[in-house]
């Protein structure tokens, strides 16, 4: 019934350890404070070191309980415990020295210094266990961190390069990262839940308190895999219900690793893993939509001026220099209004001149926008003769020419444009032609229809 007492005492360890630290340091200060030829502090010093010894012993006992009940590995607490015992004994030893009322404090300075060192080491080792060895290093400037050889390495989800994935070591470069990402926080030398450490291959083979977790070639009998596919509500499900769960692709990889023999050195290729299994982990290189060059952003008052002139003008993204300019509330925009945009011509990356009064001449002006990525000229009077000029806009990716007079011939002037991806030419001569042909870009001509079918009119 009182089963909880000992674990509770164990949990009080982090609290109790502060008593000997405080008391002993106070005693040490007194020893150094006392004048050379005086013994007047002796009774206080004696009491202090006695209390220090008792509290150190209590801290040690509670620490032992914590080690017993919280699943710490012996190896990780061993030195801390030994140093703690030495501290307790040391302070008791100093207490017995001072018991001799005539002893001068200066005589025991070396013993006290020694005790201070042991106390510091004990405290430091304890901190390493509870807070992690990186606790203090983490906050230091990067240069000092580099000196100590420390590298901040949070466990990242698995990523597999698309090229040469067959050559990856199945265990070391695929399985271990998955385990590190999903399981390591509770199964490592410092935090040894179920007495199971899966941070390296040898320990993984060893298994935990319930025995081995791997049965090469048989995932269903391997606890490592079997516990992950138990229903989430099952008590034995791993990771525990309230923790983040591994993705089903990660579990699949672990399954196929065990099925392939759970070998330490096989590569993905040797284990015969199909591309389907690793594909979800391919690192996707995000290619930014807008140009990468850096240019100064448009000043705020220039933006305000543009807006007052009737433009919609806004950065494409907070903190970006690229500008989106549209004439959605400026239907009277004409070729001669172009001059109003001159001050921001380097920044314009998205230009919408749809439904304005612009004519063919605007194309020539537009080519001065070196960073233009999206251009919309829907429902304008451009005829397209000058369209070829747009090939000078090297960054152009998407071009909208719906409801204009653009013909296929005009569009062929943009064939082989290096960046152009899509051209929309719905309701144009080009879009209405029977055989649009092939271009280096994707030409969307639309004219979709949904033919009438009997079901359209059947009422049930």
């Amino acid at each position: 019934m009182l089963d909880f007492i000992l674990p509770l005492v164990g949990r009080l360890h982090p609290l109790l350890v502060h008593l000997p630290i405080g008391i002993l340091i106070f005693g040490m200060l007194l020893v150094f404070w006392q004048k050379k030829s005086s013994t007047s502090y002796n009774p206080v010093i004696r009491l202090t070191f006695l209390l220090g010894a008792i509290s150190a012993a209590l801290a040690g006992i509670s620490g032992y309980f914590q080690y017993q009940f919280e699943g710490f590995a012996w190896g990780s607490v061993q030195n801390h415990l030994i140093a703690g015992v030495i501290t307790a004994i040391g302070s008791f030893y100093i207490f017995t020295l001072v018991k001799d009322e005539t002893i001068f404090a200066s005589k025991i300075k070396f013993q006290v210094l020694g005790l201070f060192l042991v106390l510091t080491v004990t405290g430091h080792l304890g901190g390493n266990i509870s807070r992690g060895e990186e606790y203090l290093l983490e906050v230091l400037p990067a240069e000092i961190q580099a000196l100590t050889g420390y590298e901040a390495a949070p466990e990242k989800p698995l990523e597999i390069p698309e090229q040469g994935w067959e050559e990856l070591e199945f265990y070391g470069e695929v399985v271990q990262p998955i385990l590190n990402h999903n399981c390591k926080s509770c199964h490592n030398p410092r935090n040894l839940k179920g007495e199971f450490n899966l941070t390296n291959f040898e320990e993984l083979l060893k298994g935990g308190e319930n025995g081995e977790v791997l049965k090469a070639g048989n995932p269903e009998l391997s606890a490592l895999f079997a516990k992950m596919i138990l229903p989430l509500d099952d008590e034995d499900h791993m990771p525990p219900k309230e923790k983040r769960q591994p993705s089903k692709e990660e579990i699949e990889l672990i399954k196929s690793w065990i099925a392939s023999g759970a070998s330490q050195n096989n590569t993905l290729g040797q284990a015969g893993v199909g591309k389907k299994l690793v594909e979800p982990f391919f690192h996707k290189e995000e290619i930014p939509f807008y140009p990468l060059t850096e240019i100064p952003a448009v000043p705020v008052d220039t933006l305000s001026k543009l807006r007052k002139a009737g433009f919609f003008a806004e950065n494409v993204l907070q903190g970006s220099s690229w500008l989106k300019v549209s004439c959605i509330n400026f239907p009277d925009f004409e070729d001669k209004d172009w001059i109003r945009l001159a001050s921001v011509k380097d920044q314009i990356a998205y230009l919408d001149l749809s439904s304005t009064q612009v004519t063919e001449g605007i194309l020539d002006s537009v080519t001065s926008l070196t960073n233009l990525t999206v251009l919309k000229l829907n429902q304008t009077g451009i005829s397209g003769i000058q369209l070829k000029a747009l090939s000078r806009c090297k960054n152009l990716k998407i071009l909208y020419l719906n409801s204009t007079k653009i013909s296929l011939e005009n569009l062929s002037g943009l064939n082989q444009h290096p960046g152009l991806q899509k051209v929309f030419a719905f309701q144009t001569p080009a879009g209405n032609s029977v055989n649009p042909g092939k271009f280096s870009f994707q030409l969307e001509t639309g004219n979709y229809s949904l033919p009438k079918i009997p079901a359209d009119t059947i009422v049930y």
Partner: protein
Amino acid sequence: MKSIEKLVFEFEMEKLQKQTRRHFLMDCVGKIGGLAMAPLLFSCDPGSNPAKPMGLNLSNRDLNPLSPLAPPFASKAKSIIYLHMAGSPSQLELFDYKPELVKNHNQPCPESLLEGRKFAFIRGVPNLLGPQANFTQHGESGAWVSDFLPHFAKVADEVSFLKAVHTDQFNHGPAQLFMQTGSARLGRPSLGSWVTYGLGTENQNLPGFVVLTSGGKTPDAGKSVWGSGFLPSVYQGVQCRSIGDPVLYLEDPSGMSRDLKKNVIEAINSVNQEEFNTYGDPEILARINQYEMAYRMQIEVPEVMNINDEPEHIHELYGTEPGVESFANNCLLARKLVEKGVRFVQLYDWGWDTHGTDHDGSIDMGLRNKCREIDRPMSALLLDLKQRGLLEETLVVWGGEFGRTPMQENREGKTMGFLGRDHHVDAFTMWMAGGGIKRGASHGKTDDFGFQGIEDQVSVHDIHATILHLMGFDHEKFTYDFQGRPFRLTDVEGELIRKILA
């Protein structure tokens, strides 16, 4: 007089001499403590400091609450068209094909599924109801779509299905609120309000958030589903009428010239502006803005909301009939509005609550009729957006507020005259398409009866997080300060559904 001053002076001196250490300490505790209290108390009071109204910061919007703002992160979509099927269509007749359910038709539902569950109307042990539609796979993606949606089957490659959505509300009102505002209780801003608050709107002559309804009834949850909650009311949805003038009193009354009207509005607004400068209440700005918007809308709205001028082939594509209230007309309007730079268009279509109480509410007949009403328009909407290149930057979302049970409804424990399904929260299907969404994907899986999600389940909050992500927000950082704490659309939940992102 002099003697009184002397007396006062003497009194002051006496008082100072009587001042002891205790007085000093008491003063320290009381007064310094009071000083510390002041900012704590005032922080609950947004009105007292007109220079910096809490919550709504207009300094970067030129005092116009609807002026556009750049999104904080790269956005994939700039507008949203949200098709909400109010009443909730049956996923088991449309997208979630369950051959096991066919085999077990009319068998009693396994007790294990019913354990500890409550349904809106089902009592006792109901029988399973096999799908009343025929399913086939369509397109390159092999998406399962039933013969209830023959047109949509042809465009199934354009969308990403979410097959295992779950919610936690089994009544229409709360569930609609949850789906649209992220909370089943009243008082939160709707998705459209959040988006217009965060991004403003591009066309300054049109509202940023437009609501269109069809099906003869507005959603059960009332207008709160497009309300602005604690956001300034300028961000609430503007409902346009589906029959007659889309917005009432757009025409100037006879004898009232536009110039005169302009003068009146300017006068009213200058008074209101004065009021705002004094009290800093953002609601006043909302009112100023509404006057100006109404004036500007007079020019743009009649043109945008008029579908008569659309060419014949577009009418044929959508199946529109000008002059009547229909989902088809609303779909066409939605495209026109998005084309004109409206940020958020919300469509509600009522009539999907197929309990089996009558002919209209039956799974095999009424539901087919409803499907016919939306099948062509929503497929046409996707195709029309695609051919105009609008699908590149418009996100289309389709879904109800929950799903329907794999069991036949047995209201009051009795067998019903028509085939129907009860409300179901554990698993239902939604789809998204367009800006930033993968084409032809299907995410999530349900069990053999379609009762519960068994793989890649997503919550309503996950959907909101994903929508906000596509619009360029981090749903965890996009907040509004209200009642002393920042509020989020997704509250403390929501995870991005990465697998449906292009």
